[in-house]
């Protein structure tokens, strides 16, 4: 039975530029002399290094372990010597540096022993998730959220549909398409493991209808292995169909609630590359130390897909594909709609590097014109927002109003800025507004804490003052008494001790709930 498909609002039909990088089969990238492996390659907490400078490591060996919940370990992607653990340039929109483990390769590529999971169906889902976490697997589609978290439905949540996202909707990027075309079985194996972890009822693999070869190959694999309970669905090629919320809408007609997660409507969405990485981990015991990267763009001589070790410098990958360092090219990580420019070609490939794109720098930066309220942005916005109003309020720094207009439902897909006839960098304004709001919230939290502390201090001082006065008063009284009647000195002493003890008791009784209250804040 053919699944009924739905539409999401807006979106763009873009020139694909996919065929350029799909001419050659996937090859292995050359082993670089030096690898730079960032300790943090996704949102959440950075991993804590467990190796020392000068230590020899093997391929697949743990370099740093997960620190908090939203964190996964990182592993060595070849054998060699750790030469530095320090801040290095990483691919990040800010262009800032971050802590990395630097390894000088010894060229031998010696691997540690792997221990595969023999029969994953006998493992508890939580144990399975742990294996996946220890392998350092994050979502390979873009955001790089630790995969094990998205494989945990949480107590009381049943997962109805597990969706594997093969809709690679950004122009130029083809690493998922090549993976689907050449290794359908790895993807299907990964899907089955995920299904077990999630106990999901239905499984869908979705891909765009501009990839008939990938569809054919997946379809053959599903039929040969009699896995026809997995639904293979072709979706229209409209950017950004590959967005999680958009894909779910297209496949099911359901909308992930505003500010919500797919899990709120019993769905979970993973990238096809993540599924393949999970299959490698379970069946072969391999941690995530390499990934497929599309290397393409006008200034890349031989566009192609390479299997690249995490930590390989961009320039090494680019040079292998016929790119030369003598031009003033613009280098992007990711696609042209959501990717970001990197200012240093030596930054390393990380777990979320799906594409390295290089093209000539646009010489003339056209100055934006004022907004003429044409409404094209609202017509294409897949989140059904009013981008021009968001822009207006973000520019005016009216952060309350910009949240009224649902700024935080913006997925930063860039459709609005793409169509804007005034060439206003709209997404930049939204990012600015979001960062400012986050900063304000942090400041407010800090101010609240400071105020609370101050109020406690004032209370303490006040109480001390009262107690001192009380003590003085009693002393005076007692002095008066003892002057009047010398004989009951013993008694008054005893009374004074009793009073002091009572005070101490009262203080203790008072303090306990207070300190408890403090902890909660």
């Amino acid at each position, binding site marked *: 039975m053919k699944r009924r498909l739905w539409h999401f609002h807006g979106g763009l039909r873009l020139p694909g530029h996919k065929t350029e990088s799909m001419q050659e089969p996937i090859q292995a990238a050359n082993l670089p002399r030096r690898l730079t492996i960032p300790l943090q390659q996704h949102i959440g907490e950075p991993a804590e290094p467990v190796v020392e400078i000068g230590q020899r490591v093997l391929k697949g060996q743990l370099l740093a372990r997960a620190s908090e919940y939203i964190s996964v370990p990182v592993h060595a992607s070849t054998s060699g010597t750790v030469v530095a653990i320090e801040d290095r340039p990483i691919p990040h929109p800010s262009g800032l540096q971050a802590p990395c483990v630097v390894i000088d390769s010894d060229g031998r590529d010696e691997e540690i022993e792997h221990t595969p999971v023999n029969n994953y169906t006998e493992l508890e889902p939580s144990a399975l998730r742990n294996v996946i976490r220890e392998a350092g697997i994050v979502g390979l589609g873009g955001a790089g959220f630790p995969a094990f978290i998205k494989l945990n439905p949480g107590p009381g949540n049943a997962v109805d549909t597990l969706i594997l996202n093969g809709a690679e909707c950004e122009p130029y990027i083809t690493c998922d398409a090549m993976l689907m075309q050449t290794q359908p079985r790895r993807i299907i194996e990964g899907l089955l493991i995920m299904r077990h972890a999630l106990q999901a009822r239905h499984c869908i693999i979705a891909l765009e209808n501009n990839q008939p070869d990938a569809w054919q190959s997946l379809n053959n694999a599903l039929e040969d292995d009699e896995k026809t309970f997995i639904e293979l669905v072709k979706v229209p090629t409209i950017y950004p169909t590959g967005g999680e919320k958009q894909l779910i809408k297209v496949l099911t007609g359901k909308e*992930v609630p505003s500010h919500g997660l797919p899990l709120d409507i019993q769905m979970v969405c993973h990238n096809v590359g993540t599924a393949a990485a999970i299959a490698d981990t379970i069946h072969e015991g391999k941690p995530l130390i390499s990934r497929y990267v599309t290397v393409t763009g006008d200034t890349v001589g031989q566009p192609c897909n390479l299997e690249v070790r995490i930590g390989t410098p961009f320039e090494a990958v680019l040079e292998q594909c016929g790119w030369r360092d003598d031009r003033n090219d613009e280098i992007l990580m990711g696609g042209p709609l959501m990717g*970001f420019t990197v200012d240093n070609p030596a930054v390393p490939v990380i777990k979320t590097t799906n594409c390295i794109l290089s093209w000539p720098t646009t010489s003339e930066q056209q100055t934006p014109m004022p907004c003429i309220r*044409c409404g094209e942005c609202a017509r294409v916005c897949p*989140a059904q927002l009013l981008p021009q109003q968001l822009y207006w309020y973000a520019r005016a720094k009216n952060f309350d109003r910009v949240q009224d207009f649902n700024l935080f439902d913006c997925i930063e897909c860039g459709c609005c800025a793409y169509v804007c006839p005034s060439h206003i960098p709209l997404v930049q304004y939204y990012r600015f507004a979001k960062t400012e709001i986050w900063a304000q919230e942090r400041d407010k939290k800090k101010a609240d804490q400071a105020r609370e502390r101050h109020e406690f201090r004032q209370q303490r001082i006040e109480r001390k003052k009262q107690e001192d006065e009380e003590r003085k008063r009693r002393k005076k009284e007692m002095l008066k008494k003892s002057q009047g009647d010398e004989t009951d000195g013993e008694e008054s002493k005893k009374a004074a001790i009793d009073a002091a003890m009572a005070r101490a008791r009262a203080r203790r009784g008072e303090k306990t709930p207070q300190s408890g209250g403090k902890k909660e804040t």
Partner: protein
Amino acid sequence: MNLSLHSSPHMRTSNRVNRIMLLVIGALIPGILAAIHFFGWGVLINITLAVFTAVATEALMLRLRKRPITPFLLDGSAVVTGILLGVAIPSLAPWWIPVLGAAFALIMAKHLYGGLGYNPFNPAMVGYAMLLIAFPREMTLWLTPAVHDLTFVDNLRYTFLEQLPPNWTLDGLTAATPLDAVKTQLAQNLTLTEIHQGSTELFGAISAHGWEWINLLFMLGGLILIYLRVISWHIPLAMLATLFLVSGLFHLNDPDTFTSPLFHLFSGATMLGAFFIATDPVTAAATNRGRIIFGIGIGLLLYIIRTWGGYPDAVAFAVLLMNMAVPTIDYYTRPRVFGESRD
């Protein structure tokens, strides 16, 4: 090697503000040609004077406001304002009418509010309304279509020197527009049947003589703009449908007092207003539901003012009144955001 950092997206359409303005100008041409055919070279002279003044005023204001001149002059918006104003002015107008109107439009209605994108009122219509109120005599000197055979030079002489060729008088050359004539005669308690019999030269095949062609061709240009996605269909359709329905209801009820829907649709500035003036994105509602409300409002006001108000035509006033309502309309017609419940 020094790489640049800038924010995504890194791809854009080739669409630009000046492309939009150029397409609008192109789409106006058929209607303008028809207007020249029926009302003579004066139309072209008015447009030229208005465009020239608009562009010069724009440059002057940009200079005074210390804004970059070239990109804003090249955006084409001043040219569009000039054309819209020029085509709305009667063809036998003295030169200072288009000049004053265009300068007023650009200074008072556009640059004092902050220039392109910031003006709440349609500049061309502000200029037109000012002229109509301040110079009612000059603004009603429409040539009688068909009887004119003034040459280009004759027309030019009138524009600059207010001199007509010998043996010609203003009264002989000009006549009330059909909307105006019908309104005046209805006020004299004539029935529409009597008006039709009494002044056959006013009426054409479906509507007003001459005007029906001009309106048809402006409609054609507008449809092309919708096809090219330069404007959306919401405002024109809502405005024309409202005008059609309301005038149809009154006409059906009392065909001797209320003119037919076709007469309303294809006379005066109806089509120019529906496709080129009400759709000015800067001053119109921005959401699709808002655009429909905006269009309905213009259609209603247009009919009310034409039928019971003091002016024979009312596109300018209807548009300006609805411009005022735009912020409120936009606020209350925000679309449902993805993931918000439907109720």
